[in-house]
């Protein structure tokens, strides 16, 4: 006697079988296959014991609280090019202040105040740069998903611009003795360089995503960003 396979019985249980007369009639007449079906049904019903734990009544609000912190701010829809110029402007201002300190008469400059303003301008611009880099890297991580399309040309262009800005910040950070910040920016630049060159294949995108995750780059940027904001 030809018996249906285990696969046939699984499909039958899930209502996915091509319900031919053979299977139906066979089950009516074959005690062995009915027993087999009964065992499968019991195993699958035991799996139903895996019940997800209850969530609190305000669960949706709690999830939103976490998610909303990670969403890009609406003002970040400005052209990426502006950030490059913002970075350039910040560095230029730093240079101007530095130059002013050495060319203006000593009694017209309060070095402490000038230093404070200079750092403030740089930190605001740097904080913005870090946020933009996080948004882009998160996008790259998401594109490592096999169902996601490759990076768009606009995103690669954005990476190239952030790369240029990052170099300026790194040089400035190095000049003012912020070695740890300069090191992190250098790590970021290596990733931005790869993103700007456009990883096309899924393997390349997954590789890039793994690098970002293994280096904890998003976490590091977030930590530096919050530190910068506190000043």
């Amino acid at each position, binding site marked *: 006697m030809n018996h249906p396979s*285990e696969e046939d019985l699984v499909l039958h249980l899930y209502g996915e079988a091509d319900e031919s007369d053979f299977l139906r009639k066979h089950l009516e007449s074959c005690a062995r296959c009915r027993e087999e079906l009964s065992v499968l049904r019991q195993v699958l019903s035991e*799996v139903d*014991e895996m019940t997800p734990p209850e969530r609190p009544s305000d669960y949706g609000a709690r999830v939103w609280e976490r998610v909303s912190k990670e969403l890009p701010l*609406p003002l970040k829809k400005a052209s990426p090019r502006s950030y490059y110029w913002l970075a350039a402007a910040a560095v230029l201002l730093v240079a101007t202040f530095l130059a002013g300190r050495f060319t203006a008469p000593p009694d017209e400059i309060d070095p402490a105040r000038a230093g404070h303003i200079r750092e403030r301008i740089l930190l605001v611009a740097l904080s913005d740069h870090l946020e933009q880099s996080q948004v882009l890297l*998160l*996008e790259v991580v998401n594109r490592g998903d096999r*169902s996601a399309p490759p990076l768009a040309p606009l995103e690669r262009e954005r990476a190239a611009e952030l790369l240029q800005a990052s170099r300026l910040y790194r040089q400035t950070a190095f000049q003012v003795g912020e070695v740890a910040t300069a090191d992190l920016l250098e790590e970021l630049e290596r990733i931005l360089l790869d993103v700007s060159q456009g990883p096309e294949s899924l393997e390349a995108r997954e590789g890039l995503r793994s690098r970002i995750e293994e280096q904890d780059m998003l976490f590091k940027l977030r930590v530096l960003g919050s530190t910068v904001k506190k000043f």
Partner: protein
Amino acid sequence: MKAVVTEDVLARARSGDQAAFRTIVEGYSRDVFRLAFRITGNEEDAEDAVQETFLRAYRKLEGFEARANFGTWLYRVTANTSIDVLRRRKRSDGRTEPLEDDAPSVGIAPSQEKMVYRRQVRERVESALSCLSELERGAFVLRHFEEMSLAEVSASLDTSVSATKQALFRAVRKLRKSLAPVEGSAS
């Protein structure tokens, strides 16, 4: 997932309205958690998957076609995100936490003996599920718990129907093998 937001909310969320997106998050969080938990097998990973799912959804929302079913689309994002979380966890430590002992059980006032038995079954089921590959687990969870058709499962997991069927067969075979010792031990 049942529809919990209106087309107007969806349209506003797609245009970048964060208040509208908040309505989506609050409306679907429980369903997303349930699916994420069943795929990842523990609360911590499920919570990570919930957060990552909504962040991915936010960024992909612009590409979502208004005529499609939003719940099905979000299912797809959740399933893929949960599988990614599961894959990352397996890669990092290969650890799967058992279900919490105090997880709520189904039924009313079961005897202590039955409660012990159910806990044992839950632990065995979780242990058995942790032995499945990501694809097997995803296919099984979506077909068995979420009652999606094989065609819907294959679309969600971005695989062929044939590959989905094979993954489901392998999953059932493994579960049967793992759960065999307790077959018929409770009635």
